[in-house]
C-alpha cells in the first residue's frame, strides 16, 4: 500500500513549462434544422375515403408549437357524423376491396408507404419536432426511421399469415378504430396502421389533439401512395371524437394507446360488445441498478430511460432503484451527467431535451414537482437555463424517496426521476412490482444469472437488461396490470388484428 500511495504523491510534482492553450467555455455551434422545405397548410380537414373533407361539425382547433407557442395550423374537429362517415368509408373499403385483394398486393401498398416515409423522412422529422417539441435528434434518428421500419416489417407478414398462425385460418376483423397519444405521433400511427393493414383490416385513426400534423402528413402520403380509398381514414379531434369511434357499432376492433384513466373508460364502453380490444396504457417503470453494474453505462441508461423524449414515454424508467452501497457514487455521476444535457430549441441538432408537449402537460409536471417537494423528497435539478418562450422543464431528480411518495407511484410523464435505494434482490423485486402499472423495467448488472432471476419475477411487459428504451418492430410491446393488455409489434402484434 505504501508504495502505491508513494507513487500517487509523485504525480503531484509541479510540471513546468508546458505550453497552454486553455479553451474556456467551448460552445457548440447552434445548428437549427431548416423548416423552409416543410409545407404546413394553414388548415387541415378530415381524411375520409381518400379525400380531405370539411368537418360536418364545422369546428376547427389550433395546433401550436410547444417550443415557440406559435400557432402552426388549424385542425378540423370531427363530430359524431364525421366519425360515422369515416367508419362507413372504412367498412365499405373493407367489404369491397381490401379484404378481397390478394395478400401480396396488400404487402406492396404497405412497402410503398414505408419507402415513401423514408423518402420524406426529413420533412416528417421536422414537423414532428415543430408540433410535438421533441428534439430533432430523436425524431430524425428514432421516430421516423422506426415508423418506416414498422411498415416494412408488417408488409413482410401480409402474405405469410398462414405461416405465422398455422392451421388456424387467420382472418381479418373488419374496421379497426385506433386512438393514439401525443408522445410519438407518427410512430404510434405506424404501430397501429401497419399491422392492421397487413392483416387485411381497414382503419379509422384519431391522432392526439396536440400533435395531429404528422398523422395528417401521413394521410397526404397515403393519398399519394394510391392506397385504395377508405382503407385508412384519419379523423382529428378531442376525447369526444375518440369516444365516437369507440362506440360506433361498425367498429370491430379498438386499439388505444394513452392514459390508464381513458383506457378504463374505453374498456367499460366496449364491455358487452363483440369488439376486440387492446390497450397500451401508462407506466411507472423500475430501473434497477445493482452494485456490480457497468456504472458509467448505467448512468447513460438512466438518463436515456427518463429524459428520452422529455420523459413523455409510457415505458420511461421513472423509478430508479440503486443498490445502497453504490448509491452515493452513482447519484453523483448522474448529477454530473445531467449538467451536460443540452435543453432548448428542439430543432437544434445539439439539443438533448426539447420542449414539454403542451402547456397543460407542463403544468401537470410542475404540480408533481411541488407535490414531491411538499412530500419532503430532496429535489435536484440541472443548472441549465431554459428558453424564455415555450414550455420547458429542467431535468429533475427526487432523492430519498420511498414507495409511499406520490411522485413514486403516480405517472408524471415528464423529465422527473424518483430515486430509491435497496439492499437485496428480493427487496427490489418486491418494490418494483409494488405498483399498479407493469409496462417495462430495466436491470443493470454484469451478472447474467441475476438478470434471468430478476426478469422472471418482474411483472412487466418489457424488461431491458443493461440498456433501456430499445424498440424494434419485431419485438412485442405491451403491459401487465393497469398498463394494459395485448401486444403490439412482432408476431404478437398481428394476432390482435385477426380471428384465429
Amino acid at each position, binding site marked *: *500500500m505504501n*508504495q*502505491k500511495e*508513494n*507513487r*500517487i504523491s*509523485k*504525480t*503531484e*510534482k509541479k*510540471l*513546468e*513549462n*508546458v*505550453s*497552454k*492553450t*486553455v*479553451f*474556456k*467555455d*467551448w*460552445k*457548440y*455551434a*447552434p*445548428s437549427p434544422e431548416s423548416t423552409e422545405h416543410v409545407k404546413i397548410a394553414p388548415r387541415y380537414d378530415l381524411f375520409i375515403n381518400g379525400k380531405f373533407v370539411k368537418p360536418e361539425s364545422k369546428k376547427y382547433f389550433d395546433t401550436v408549437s410547444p417550443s415557440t407557442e406559435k400557432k402552426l395550423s388549424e385542425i378540423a374537429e370531427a363530430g359524431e357524423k364525421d366519425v360515422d362517415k369515416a367508419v362507413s368509408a372504412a367498412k365499405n373499403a373493407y367489404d369491397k376491396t381490401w379484404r378481397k385483394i390478394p395478400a401480396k398486393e396488400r404487402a406492396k401498398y404497405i412497402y410503398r408507404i414505408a419507402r415513401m416515409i423514408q423518402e420524406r423522412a426529413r420533412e416528417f422529422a421536422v414537423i414532428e419536432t415543430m408540433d410535438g417539441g421533441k428534439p430533432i*435528434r430523436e425524431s430524425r434518428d428514432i421516430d421516423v426511421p422506426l415508423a418506416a421500419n414498422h411498415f416494412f416489417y408488417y408488409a413482410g407478414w401480409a402474405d405469410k399469415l398462414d405461416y405465422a398462425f398455422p392451421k388456424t385460418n387467420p382472418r381479418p376483423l373488419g374496421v379497426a378504430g385506433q386512438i393514439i397519444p401525443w408522445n410519438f405521433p407518427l410512430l404510434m400511427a405506424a404501430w397501429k396502421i401497419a399491422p392492421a393493414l397487413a392483416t387485411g383490416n381497414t382503419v379509422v385513426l384519431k391522432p392526439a389533439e396536440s400533435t395531429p400534423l404528422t398523422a395528417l402528413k401521413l394521410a397526404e402520403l397515403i393519398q399519394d401512395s394510391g392506397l385504395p380509398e377508405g382503407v385508412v381514414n384519419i379523423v382529428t379531434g378531442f376525447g369526444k371524437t375518440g369516444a365516437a369511434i369507440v362506440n360506433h357499432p361498425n367498429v370491430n376492433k379498438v386499439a388505444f394507446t394513452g392514459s390508464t384513466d381513458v383506457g378504463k373508460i374505453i374498456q367499460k364502453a366496449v364491455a358487452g360488445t363483440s369488439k376486440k380490444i387492446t390497450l397500451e396504457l401508462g407506466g411507472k417503470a423500475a430501473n434497477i441498478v445493482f452494485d*456490480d*453494474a*457497468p*456504472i*458509467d*453505462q*448505467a448512468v*447513460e*441508461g438512466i438518463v436515456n430511460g427518463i429524459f428520452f423524449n422529455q420523459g413523455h414515454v409510457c415505458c420511461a424508467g421513472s423509478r430508479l432503484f440503486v443498490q445502497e452501497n453504490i448509491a452515493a457514487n452513482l447519484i*453523483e455521476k448522474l448529477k454530473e451527467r445531467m449538467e*451536460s444535457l443540452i435543453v432548448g430549441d428542439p430543432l*437544434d*441538432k*445539439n439539443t438533448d431535451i426539447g420542449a414539454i408537449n403542451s402547456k397543460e402537460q407542463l403544468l401537470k409536471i410542475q404540480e408533481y414537482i411541488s407535490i414531491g417537494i411538499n412530500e419532503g423528497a430532496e429535489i435536484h435539478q440541472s443548472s441549465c437555463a431554459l428558453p424564455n418562450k415555450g414550455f420547458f422543464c429542467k431535468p429533475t431528480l427526487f432523492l430519498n424517496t420511498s414507495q409511499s411518495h406520490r411522485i413514486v407511484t403516480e405517472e408524471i410523464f415528464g423529465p422527473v426521476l424518483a430515486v430509491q435505494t435497496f439492499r437485496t434482490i428480493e427487496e427490489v423485486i418486491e418494490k418494483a412490482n409494488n405498483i399498479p402499472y407493469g409496462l417495462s423495467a430495466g436491470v443493470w448488472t*454484469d451478472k447474467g444469472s441475476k438478470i434471468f432471476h430478476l426478469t422472471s419475477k418482474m411483472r412487466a411487459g418489457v424488461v431491458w437488461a*443493461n*440498456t433501456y428504451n430499445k424498440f424494434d418492430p419485431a419485438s412485442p410491446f405491451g403491459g401487465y396490470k393497469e398498463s394494459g393488455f395485448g401486444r403490439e409489434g412482432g408476431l404478437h402484434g398481428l394476432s390482435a388484428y385477426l380471428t384465429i
Partner: protein
Amino acid sequence: MGISYFDDTPHVDQVGVEERIARFSTRSIKKTSKMQALKLALNMIDLTTLEGKDTPGKVNQMCYKAMHVCNQLPELPTVAAVCVYPNHVKTARKALNGTEIKVAAVATAFPSGNSTSSIKLEDTQFAVSEGAHEIDMVISRGEFLRGNYNFVFDEIAAIKDACGKARLKVILETGELSTLDNVRKASDLAIQAGADFIKTSTGKIQPAATMPVTLVMLQAIKDHYKKTGKMVGMKPAGGISTAKVAINYLVMLHETLGDSWMTNEWFRFGASSLANDLLMQIGKEQHGIYQSKDYFSND
C-alpha cells in the same frame, strides 16, 4: 498478491459505450467553434516518428515542422511535442531549443516491452539524461494478461522513479488487451502506479486508438480525479488521421472531463498525418476553399 488494485474498478459494457460514442459525433461544430477546435487539436499533437530508419536528418525536419506547422497560414499554434526514440532525443532537443515544444521519448523496449526490467530502466534513464521532457513507456501486456498485476504496477512505479522531472505517459496498448474491462483495469493500475498520462497505443498494433477505448480511459481518469483531486492526462495515439475524428474526440473530452482538460497539458493526440488534415481544414475555414495536399509539407 495482497494488494487489490481493482476495488473501485467498475465493469464496462461495450454496447453502452458505443451508444454513448455515437452521440459525440452528432454535435454541431462549425464556424467559430470549429476553428477553435482545429487550432486546439493542432496544439495537442505529439508529432511522431518511430521508425527503424529514423535519422537525425529526418528528426530535424520534423522538428522544424513542429515549430512552423504552416507558415502560409497566420496565427497557428505549434504542436505540443515531438515523439522520437531515445537515441534521437538530443537531436530533437537541439532543434527545438528556445521553444515550448516538448520532446517525448518512447522507452522501455518500445513497442513490445519484452525485455528485462533493468534494460527498460536503463532505456528510460538514458532518454531522461538526453533531455527528454516526457517518457512514453509501454506496459508488459503479457504480464498483465496473465494476471501478474503486481509486476506491471511495480514496473510502472520504477519507471516513474527513473523519470525524475520528466512526465510519464503509460501506453496500455489497448489493441492487445482485448476487452474494455481490461482497458479499464489497466488504466486504473497505471494511474495508481503513478502515470501522469495514460495512452492508448504504440501505433504499431491494430486497432490503435478508438473512441470506445478512449472513453473508458477518460472515465478512469475522471473517477481518479473525483476520488483524489489529481488530474491525469490522456493521449489517444494511432489511427486518428482526420480533423473530423479529432473533433469528435474533443467533444468526448469536453463532455466527459470538461474544460480543465482542454489543453495540451492534459490531452494529446499521438499522430503524424493528423496535422496536415487540420491545416487543410483551417485553410478551408480561412479561404473558403480546399487547397491541394501539395501545399502542406509532409515532414
